[in-house]
């Protein structure tokens, strides 16, 4: 594990996450959610070269938080949101089928 920051105090507050085989689909979604979490100071992603197929996500959190935890919570929150979308879609399909049968 490498952390590209020498400042000991700030070391645990920021990190680059490397996600292999991911693209803007997940990058945009994750940065959207992480940017709206109260613990986040800064969050952005980049795909350094279109042929590389690797996503780098930079996350800096406010003091008193753990980067990994915040990142994990962001992904968990995203997973929850997707469950909600799935649930509501199935329900909406049920309503539509009832109305049109």
């Amino acid at each position, binding site marked *: 594990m490498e952390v590209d920051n020498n400042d000991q105090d700030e070391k645990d507050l920021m990190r680059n*996450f*490397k*996600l292999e085989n991911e693209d*803007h689909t997940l990058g945009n979604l994750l940065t959207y959610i992480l940017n709206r979490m109260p613990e986040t100071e800064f969050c952005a992603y980049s795909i350094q070269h279109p042929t590389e197929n690797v996503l780098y996500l930079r996350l800096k959190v406010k003091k008193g938080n753990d980067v990994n935890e915040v990142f994990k919570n962001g992904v*968990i929150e995203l*997973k929850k949101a997707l469950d909600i*979308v*799935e649930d509501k879609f199935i329900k909406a*399909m049920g309503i*539509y089928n009832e109305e049109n049968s």
Partner: protein
Amino acid sequence: MKIKMKLMLSERDGIAKNYNDVDSIFENNTKNINWNAKYFEKEFTIKIVNIDGLNMEFDLININSSFVNAFRRILIAEVPMMAIEKVFIFNNTSFIQDEVLAHRLGLIPLKADFRRFSFRKSEICNPTNIIDHSRIRFALVIIEAKVRNAVDFECIRSMYYESFLFSNIRLVQLYSEKIKWIPIGDQITKFRIDEIGPVHDDILIAKLRPGHDIDLKMLAVKGIGKDHAKFQPVGKYLKLKATASYRLLPQIKLKQTVKNEEAQKLKASFSPGVIELHKIKDDLIAKVGNTRNDLCSRNIYRYENLKDYVEVSRVPNHFIFTIESVGALPPNILFLEAIKILQNKCKRIIQDIENKGSTCFL
């Protein structure tokens, strides 16, 4: 707490002056409440508008575009589909070259439920070991097309010497209906005959002259649209304008009553059904009908006298999502599969963090 939000469609500017505008309008509503799943559950609604065979339209309300765009991207590039990948040509004396024929065959949409197949493990180049591979993990389907146009020597003479080339007599047209599925391994017990085959029976593959012969075996595999467009489960060619797409709900407001000739002009400058004319006494009065149909052409700004009567805008958090399936699976199942793929991505990342996987950190 409900703030009415809209994006103005003015005469000269684009939909928003810069990218952040869309977000900032949405932001006004959410800034104080930090985004979380609970808040999302309360606000977010789905309404299915229409399902018509392979086409589907539904509304996603109170959701951010990054979600909607993710669904669209996944539907196009990552939801799998079965398509012909290998073609073993035993004989082809038709006008179409082998490689062109193989390419054409690859693009024929197949009806086969991709959820019941697995991705192939390796490249298979020999028709003899197909069966061994599929017996374990029935990832493959063999399809055969064998057509022979009978040789008639007298006919050939007339064909080449009497400008017979340009007529359609004795020309056999090879359609996709000739593609027959041969089950491998235990597939015969798992699938009905009509479950696997081409979606359409009337796709022209080749035209055969007397004496021409096509004899081939094909192998279909599961793949994703990222790899090749033939694996894309959302449409490419049917009646809708797009494959999987979304747009914002248009909003039209009349600032004052518009009558008679002006009303007719107003009606003509929007898409059909958007402006309705009502006869009240002797006057025709324009009223806003179904704004959903509007394509936001901004034709109204051509008329100097009319452009101040209307306010054209879009609702920034109301997405109209359309899916057009190729025919392998109905569009509602494709959407659910797209969500599942995103969920699996999340699960993989969560697992990786918990296991302190090396791929996740830098």
